[in-house]
C-alpha cells in the first residue's frame, strides 16, 4: 500500500480531519454525544491508518511505543488522581465540587479532567495493542 499514490495522499488529507474530529468529540462531549472514550478510539484509529499507509516504523518515530504505553498507564493515574485531589481537599472521592468555589465549575473541571484521563488511556491502550499486533506480524513473515 505504501506505493499507492492515491492512498498516501488520501491518508495525508484525511488524518488531520480525523484528529480534529477526535478532539471535537472529546470537548463537545458536554453538549452532544461523545467523550473521552470515543475520542481516544478515533485518535488511535487515525494513527493506525497512518501506520497502515506509511509503515509502522514511520509512525513509531513520532509516537514511540514507550510513549503510548505510558499514556495507557497515565490516563488511569489522571482519573484516579482527580479523586485523590478531591479527597485531599476534604470532599469525598471524585467529589468534583471541591475543585472550584462554585460547585458547577468544579464539576466542569472535574469532568474535563477525568475525560482527559479516559482519552489518554484509551488512546494509549488501543495504540499499544495495535503496535503489538502489527509489530509481530511484520517480524513473523
Amino acid at each position, binding site marked *: 500500500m505504501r506505493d499507492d499514490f492515491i492512498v498516501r495522499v488520501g491518508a495525508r488529507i484525511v488524518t488531520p480531519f480525523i484528529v480534529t474530529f477526535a478532539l471535537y*468529540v472529546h470537548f463537545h*462531549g*458536554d*453538549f*452532544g*454525544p*461523545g*467523550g473521552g*472514550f*470515543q475520542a481516544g*478510539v*478515533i485518535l*488511535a*484509529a487515525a494513527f*493506525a491508518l497512518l501506520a*497502515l499507509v506509511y509503515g509502522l516504523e514511520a509512525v513509531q518515530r513520532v509516537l514511540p511505543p514507550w510513549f503510548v*504505553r505510558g499514556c*495507557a*498507564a497515565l*490516563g*488511569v493515574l489522571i*482519573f*484516579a488522581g482527580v*479523586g485523590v485531589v478531591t479527597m485531599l481537599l476534604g470532599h469525598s*472521592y*471524585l467529589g*468534583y465540587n471541591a475543585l472550584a468555589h462554585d*460547585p*458547577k465549575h468544579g*464539576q*466542569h473541571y*472535574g*469532568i474535563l479532567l*477525568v*475525560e482527559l*484521563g*479516559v482519552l489518554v*488511556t*484509551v488512546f*494509549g*491502550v*488501543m495504540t*499499544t*495493542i*495495535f503496535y*503489538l*499486533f*502489527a509489530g*509481530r*506480524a511484520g517480524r*513473523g*513473515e
Partner: protein
Amino acid sequence: MITVVGIVLFTLLGATALALVRVRNLFAVVMLAGVYSLLSAGLFTVMDAVDVAFTEAAVGAGISTVLFLGALALVGHREAQPSHRPILPLAVVAVTGATLVYGTMDLPGFGDPANPVHHHVADHYLEESSREIGIPNVVTSVLASYRGYDTMGETTVVFAAAVGVMLLLAGRRRKPAPEPDEAPAAAADR
C-alpha cells in the same frame, strides 16, 4: 417508519450473525463482525441511544476491526474445521435464548414513560443535572460525575486489557518448559 427501519435492521443483524457462524474464512468473519457492529450502531440510533451508537461504531466497527486484522496477520485466514458437531453449545445457546425471551415477556413496554427506569434515579438525573452539574448532556453528567467511578473502573478495564496483551505479546520468545508427563523422566535422566 421507525418500526420498519427497526425490523429491517434486525433482519440484517440476524442474517449477519448467521453468516458469521457459518463462514470459515476468518477475513470474511472480521468484516462481517464490523458490519454487525455498524448495524447495531444503527439500531441504537433508532432507539435514541446516540452515545451508545457512537461508541459502538467507533469501537466495534472501527478500531476492533483493525485489531482483528492485525491478529489475523499472525494466525492465518482459515478457521480450523471443528472436530465434532457443537451440539451441546447449540443446546446451551437455544436454552439461553429461550430463557431470555421468556424473561422479556414481563418486561415493561419499550418507551413507556411509566417504566421504573425512567423514574427512580433517572428523574433525578434529568431534573437536577443542570443545577448540580451544569452541562447539557445528561449522559455525560451521569457517566463522568454521578457514576464517574464506574467510568474510572472501565478505564481501568481498558488498561488491564493492555497489560494483558503486553504481558502476552511483548517480544516473547520463551522456551517451552517440559510437559508434566516428561518432567520426572527428565529429572531422572540427569
